[in-house]
């Protein structure tokens, strides 16, 4: 039984001290769960603010340093434009992180809405690779990919983007400096996406934890980890697909996503 859920009474279990103690323990666990989640949300929102504020501070200092004499106006504008471009990228990344938190909340409440339409998964994967490429390059992780063309299915674009980016981000985070392998192929029924990182790898127990619902203890004092994988797992499940991870400590992890190309039409998708 999940922590924090009130237990039902049974005829054989008369109300008494033991029963009340159990109820109290459940409520305390629920409060710990809430506090841990709030802490992790705070961390997720606070952490990326540092480079955003830093860029603003840099631009302000630059503007204050311009004395109008001997400065090339065109060069000044180029510096400002470059800074604003970096700021734009950082804020877009921040919004994505906020979206992830919202997805987490909607999934937990069973209120995810999908817009199913023909989508080319190969294009979604290529776009995600393009977005992660600069960070992968700086981390020293080469990207090796073999993608089939025109892998079209009826899916939700945003859900696909969230899934692909969460998995890529995970293998980059845990395998920084090591190559990242991405393959995509399909038959008439399903598309199969495999994302391989040659990083530290994780144990079977850790695999299960990462794909489990992030209740209080699920974060285990590491609020920066796990949300993306949880959301990816649930979104793939909602699209009637499955996601597995094959991992060996010290050798890396391979995430495999299998998605049916013709997701059956149901008015409101039940999130598993």
């Amino acid at each position, binding site marked *: 039984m999940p922590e924090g859920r009130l237990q039902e009474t049974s005829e054989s279990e008369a109300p008494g001290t033991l029963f009340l103690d159990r109820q109290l323990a459940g409520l305390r666990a629920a409060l710990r769960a809430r506090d841990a989640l709030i802490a992790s949300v705070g961390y997720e929102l606070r952490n990326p*603010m*540092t480079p955003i504020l830093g860029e603003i*501070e840099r631009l302000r200092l630059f503007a204050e340093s311009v004395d109008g004499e001997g400065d090339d106006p065109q060069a000044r504008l180029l510096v400002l434009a470059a800074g604003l471009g970096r700021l734009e990228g950082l804020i877009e990344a921040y919004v994505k992180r906020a979206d992830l938190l919202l997805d987490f909340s909607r999934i937990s409440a069973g209120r995810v809405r999908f817009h199913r339409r023909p989508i080319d998964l190969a294009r979604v994967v290529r776009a995600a690779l393009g977005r992660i490429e600069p960070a992968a390059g700086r981390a020293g992780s080469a990207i090796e990919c073999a993608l089939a063309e025109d892998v079209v299915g009826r899916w939700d674009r945003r859900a696909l983007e969230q899934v692909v980016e969460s998995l890529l981000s995970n293998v980059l985070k845990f395998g920084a400096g090591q190559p990242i392998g991405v393959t995509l192929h399909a038959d008439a029924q399903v598309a199969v996406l495999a994302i391989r990182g040659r990083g530290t790898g994780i144990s079977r127990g850790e695999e299960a934890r990462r794909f489990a619902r992030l209740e209080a203890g699920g974060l285990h004092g590491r609020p920066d980890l796990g949300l993306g994988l949880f959301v990816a797992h649930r979104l793939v499940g909602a699209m009637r697909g499955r996601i597995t991870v094959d991992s060996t400590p010290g050798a890396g992890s391979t995430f495999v996503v299998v998605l049916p190309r013709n997701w059956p039409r149901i008015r409101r998708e039940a999130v598993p």
Partner: protein
Amino acid sequence: MKTILVVDDEDGLTEMLRAVLSDLGYRVVTAPNGLRALERLGETHPDLAIVDYMMPVLDGPALVRRMHREPEFRDVPVVVISAVAEGAAGGRFDGYAAYLQKPFRLAHLVAVVSRLVGAAA
């Protein structure tokens, strides 16, 4: 030239610190986790390390413990940066020269760096 090692899994942050500190004349090397940082330490022998608390693979406290075991890195001053308050996370570190809670002001970081290692050149 003074060398600063920046260790953080937020790529946007390491790149911004690289730009800011390089503009001031420091040589900056970066690492996305503690394990890569250990490699960088051996390659670059930094004068200062700016270290995030929570990172995958090897986190900040584990990195600092490993640094303190090595005579050649024991005296490298460490500036901890974290979204977690010092009261909650500081105790997990063997020791550090300064602790900045994210988001911090760049001016504050630059003042701390300059106090600990002096001017860049």
